[in-house]
């Protein structure tokens, strides 16, 4: 799969938040998320950590499943703020979609 | 704790009065403790009555006595600690309990 890109976190910071770096991929957010499906939102944060920009854009639709309910942020053991990271990723995607 | 204290041997009446005063002083604890003891006594009696028929598993005892299963187990464990009941053989996923007097010779399985 794709190579890592250390610069993406900076892009995300510009979109509002870079706390996703603090995620240690414990999976609490996935299991607590009311969507109760797949690896969302952790996998999105993981892609962000790795800088897997293509994967994020490919799977962007997933982001809009987020209800912005904040439960993941409330329960995140690392304070990685997954809810806000998802919002930032939405902004990143909207912006890149607007650009194209 | 010291000798001066242990030597005290008040008369019977004085002792009674002292207990009475102490009961009044500790009414906030004595009342609930007495109630709880009565409740446990009644529950233990029910368990004894049930086990007098035959050994039984905690859910069976609970069903027969109307006690909650967790309370039943808790009381059984307490009664076992003081030698009143013993663990008997196993039925499915549960052990049976029996009154100590009529327990089989050894619970060894």
């Amino acid at each position, binding site marked *: 799969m794709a190579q890592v890109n250390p610069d993406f976190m900076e892009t995300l910071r510009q979109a509002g938040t*870079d706390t996703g770096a603090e995620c240690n991929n414990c999976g609490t957010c996935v299991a607590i998320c009311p969507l109760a499906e797949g690896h969302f939102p952790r996998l999105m944060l993981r892609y962000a950590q790795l800088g897997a920009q293509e994967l994020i854009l490919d799977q962007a639709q997933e982001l809009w499943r987020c209800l912005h309910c904040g439960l993941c942020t409330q329960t995140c053991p690392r304070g990685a703020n997954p809810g806000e990271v998802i919002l930032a990723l939405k902004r990143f995607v909207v912006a890149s979609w607007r650009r194209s | 704790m010291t000798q001066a204290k242990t030597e005290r041997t008040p008369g019977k009446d004085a002792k009674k009065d002292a207990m009475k005063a102490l009961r009044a002083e500790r009414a906030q604890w004595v009342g609930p403790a007495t109630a709880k003891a009565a409740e446990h006594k009644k529950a233990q009696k029910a368990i004894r009555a049930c086990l007098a028929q035959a050994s039984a598993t905690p859910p069976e005892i609970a069903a027969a006595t109307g006690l909650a299963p967790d309370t039943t187990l808790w009381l059984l464990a307490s009664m076992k600690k003081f030698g009143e009941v013993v663990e008997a053989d196993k039925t499915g996923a549960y052990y049976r309990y029996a009154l100590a007097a009529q327990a089989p010779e050894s619970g060894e399985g």
Partner: protein
Amino acid sequence: MAERTNHNPAQAPADSQAPAHNPAKNPPPAQNHDQAPDRNHDHDQAQDQAQDPARVGVYICYCGGNISDHVDVEAVRARMAAQPGVAVARTNMFMCSDPGQELIMEDLRAGRINRVVVASCSPSLHEGTFRSAIARAGGNPYQYEHANIREQVSWVHHGQAATDKATRLISAAAGKAGLLDALSPLRVEALRRAVVIGGGVAGLRAALDMADSGIQVLLVERTAWLGGAVARLGRLAPVGEDASGLLRGLAGQVLAHPGVTVHARAVVSGFGGYLGNFSLTLSRTPDPDVNADVNADANANADAVADAAPLSKMPSKTPSKMPSKMPSKMPSKMTVGGFVRGLGVLAPTQPDAASQDQGPLTVRTGVIVLATGHRSYTPKRGEYGYAENPEVLTLPRLIQHLADTEAETGPLLVLNGRAIRRLAIIHCVGSRQIPGIHQEDESGCLNEHCSRVCCAASINAANQVRERHPQTSVYELYRDIRTYGRGQEEMYAKAAANRVVFLRYSADDAPEVRRCPAGQGFPLEVAVRDGLTLGQELRVPVDLVALATGMVPGPVAELVDMLKLPVGADRFLQEVHPKLRPVELPLPGVFLAGTCQAPMDIGEVCSAASAAAVKAVALLSKGHVELDPFVAEVDEQACTGCGACVAACLNKGALGLETLELDGAMVSRARVTPALCLGCGACVAVCPEYAIDINGWTLAQYEAMVDRIVCRLEGVA
């Protein structure tokens, strides 16, 4: 404190009031039979007991069901009560508890019994407990025998067979107990001196603590430097203390302490004696070896690659070019107490150890503290590309570079003139190896242990890189992050916030380091199946790979042989019991401090060293030590002086022939030096007259036990 075997009185250290005798030639007082336990008194007691026959008390433990679930304890008790010679037989839920011990003590005090058998768990756990209870009740603690009916009965046998076997074992113990004489511990005078082997942090800490407690300390260090592995470190995890400052402080105190003598560039080449009075021979480290040591130690994992390309301009950069006589050719400003990164604090040169023509030095000491440290694992050639790619080095090497260049900041980490845009650190290199997955080393060993400190060290290094060189990105490839210590989890979280990227690999699918395809702009690429990304294979192009090499046992084979030290399956030195006696060895008077025992971080090393010191101080506080009396004793009436035992003795010096007067005639008789006797019994088996026995372990006692095992017992199989 020390005495040279070849004479050089002028250079003898000041404290020459020490006994000026070679222990082998002229035994110290405790070896002297005159000061050994008063045998006559013992014989009197034995005679008393002959008139006052053995009354054995048998005490059987339920062990809260551990025993009584499988052994019918009450039945055993009844059987034992019926046995001849058994005065009382009792049971208790926990014999080791106060009420249990009180049972024994009450029977002893009341005179109902004069021998004790306790049947309970393994004697390794409670033999001492019961011996001490007997002593408190005024009995003789050696008139005690233990029957192991938990580990060797109730936990392995069931039903009637368990009950029967327990009966027989207890019966055998009672049989032996009936024959046990009253013994007293051997009293050994103890020198209030300690030798510490190893001048790293553990050795320094232990030396200081003992010296502060009024014990004369001699610190032996192989190299010319104090500080060991810590000398190679810089900012320490998790809060960033400076390793060199820490070392300077500790070594400075040691060097300034009037109670400590430092013998640098010395190794232990001979060992003798026993607790309270050990003798150690120190040899001057041959110069070429010093360099070898320095190579091995200071330049941990003397990276083939890094050697070719020096890391920095610090003096430690090319140890291989170190002059053969270092102290004389060190930088002129280098003085004793001065610090060189990678080497440590320069130790003084002892006048008596300095010149090559002087012979070895013999020192005598009451205790020995082993602080011989560890080695850093050297990756195999090709392990994660090590030694095949100049861009692969070890974490210790990277840490040393970061320490050497501490003042440097800049967008990118620069190493050997090369800017590092991306750095990958691979964890668990040479640690947590799994049989069947990892390859054994030349000696057929695997390092199955976790090296404990590498996670924190890796993350600490990553944080330093990220904070000093924000454009250098860091990837950590780990199996489990083990930031267990105080402040370490916070450091790990900080690394994540610093955007260090963590990739999780599994042991059976280790990352691969390979040359990057041309045109990618990076020399290397690390491919890893990342458990955090649904097991997808990720490729991380990097400029540098650091291997977080673990700790492996130090090269102490000679010491292990010489002192007969126990070594664990992990090949580190093995304490007696990790919880009951964590810094002690079976060899009394020898203690463990630091990473010779297991991987530890600096704080843990200092705790362990202080714990070893406190045991040593307690042991030496009285000026004498008591030892078990389980040594050989000769029946002078039966001995014919044939000398077979002397020939068989495994510890030369413990047994000899002496001429003495017996019933008016001068005869030759075997004579035991108790403090040197190992109690192995090699002499017992060869005596044609059965005239020699081990106190507390006599042949007759064994025969009695066998008799009880085979004899008919009512209702017992």
